């Protein structure tokens, strides 16, 4: 098969799988073999979604969730990158922080939500903090890994030109670790979405998670489905934006 033919088939198959799934669902739902209240045909969700834009401020609710993700993400990712770089560069820092990092890394951070609520009250701050906690360690550890995997030869070059610790940090560790940092950030973004939606389930106060949970509570199942679809699209868009930023900041990364 020619390369172009293969590409075309690949694209067709990629598009085909979600469409097939939706068609199957539509067909079964319409046939009445499953309860249409809980498994409404996908085609019926369109009208629900349209009304939700006006009646339920769907965009506004989505934006509340996006804001929570962004604040929490920044609060966790920025310290994560800095601590990760320090852990990569300095073995004493690494030896000191590694046991704590690996131990806490394994705890599902959402389990800490009660503690966070006690410490930070029940406002927005608690949501940001739980997101920050959830992503800090994955960002720090992958940043550290990025620094550690850098060839010693780059350090030698910097030292040979008389570069000190700050030069090493700025010209070798930071740029060299950026691909690994972005790998960590991509994972972190997924975590952040999960945790924000989770907190909105537990303590509904606006946001797409609250919308899903409240729709479920009043058996407004179609609205719940619309909320799920919006959540999925949101996750996809956030990763696209991150990929775009990476392409701008890491132009030297070889095409994968």
């Amino acid at each position, binding site marked *: 098969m020619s390369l172009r033919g293969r590409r075309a088939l690949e694209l067709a198959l990629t598009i085909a799988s979600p469409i097939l799934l939706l068609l199957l669902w539509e067909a079964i739902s319409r046939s009445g073999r499953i309860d249409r209240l809980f498994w409404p045909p996908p085609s019926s969700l369109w009208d629900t979604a349209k009304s939700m834009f006006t009646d339920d401020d769907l965009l506004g609710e989505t934006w509340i969730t996006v804001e929570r993700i962004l604040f929490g993400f920044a609060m966790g990712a920025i310290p994560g990158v800095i601590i990760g770089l320090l852990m990569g560069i300095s073995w004493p820092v690494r030896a000191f922080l590694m046991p704590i990092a690996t131990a806490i890394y394994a705890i599902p951070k959402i389990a800490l939500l009660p503690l966070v609520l006690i410490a930070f009250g029940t406002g927005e701050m608690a949501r940001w903090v739980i997101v920050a906690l959830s992503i800090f360690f994955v960002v720090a550890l992958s940043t550290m890994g990025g620094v550690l995997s850098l*060839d010693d*030869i*780059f350090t*030698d*070059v*910097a*030292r*040979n*030109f*008389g*570069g000190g610790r700050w*030069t090493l940090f700025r*010209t*070798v560790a930071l*740029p*060299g670790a*950026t691909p690994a940092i972005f790998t960590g950030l991509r994972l972190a973004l997924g975590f952040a979405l999960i945790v924000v939606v989770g907190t909105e389930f537990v303590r509904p106060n606006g946001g797409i998670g609250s919308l899903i949970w409240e729709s479920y509570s009043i058996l407004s199942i179609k609205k719940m489905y619309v909320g799920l679809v919006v959540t999925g699209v949101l996750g996809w868009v956030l990763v696209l934006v991150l990929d775009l930023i990476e392409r701008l900041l*890491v*132009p*030297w990364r*070889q095409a994968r």
Partner: protein
Amino acid sequence: MEIALARATVEMPKRGNVSRQPLVQIRGLGRVFESAAGPVTAIHDVDLDLRQGEFLAIVGPSGCGKTTLLRIVAGLETPTSGEVDTAGLPSDRPANAMVFQGRSVFPWLTVEQNAAYGLSIHRSAKRDKAKIIDRLLETVGLSGFRKAYPHQLSEGMRQRVAIARALAVDPELLLMDEPFGSLDEQTRFILQDEVLRIWHETGKTVVVVTHSIDEALTLADRVVVMTAHPGTIKDVVPVTLARPRDQATMRSDPEFARLFGRIWESLRTEVLDSRAAGAGR
């Protein structure tokens, strides 16, 4: 070949004031590494003078400590005994710059950013910097690739970038650790010619570590032969081949064959010893 002719008639290096004092004096130099299996002597009791403007090659079997010797001279490692007297080197600018073995060019910088790396650390004036980089990229034949990233270049071009980066800081001493080891033979010949041309033009003192006798004879005024385990200097062979050296005619010179034979004879026993000693490694 105008440049080469100019060199043939001018005996003195360009930078006036030639002193008889060697540029670098290495005395009783030793380096012992601690390893899990106990101390390992990388080099032992090395005496060597680097003369201003000369091209010196160091050959030896793998693991003979030739890279360690070079790294000590570069200041990247400290000796456990002996000393390197660099009183002959200038103090107002970087005394040495190294062209490393393997992939030392920063993948995250463009060709021109890589070439300017040493200069940016030394915070030299911006205007000068641009001019120096222009000229150097011209010299190493990379003018058309200023904005390219290393992964877009061939291995040979990347090594040219490394050479430009080292030369940019105008070091008195250019150190090269197996600079062409990973290149194919034809690319290697071309880069050897270019390094010789640059050496002619700049009058720098160059030390190259290589495993290739052929490369050592192509480039050097003197070839230092090292023993293995521990690394010591076994022989220093003056290379009397006429300059400028041409890759083809040089190899048909009977002197080339004689020198090759002498160095290989000296090395052969070392390589065999080294393989016996290092069999478990």
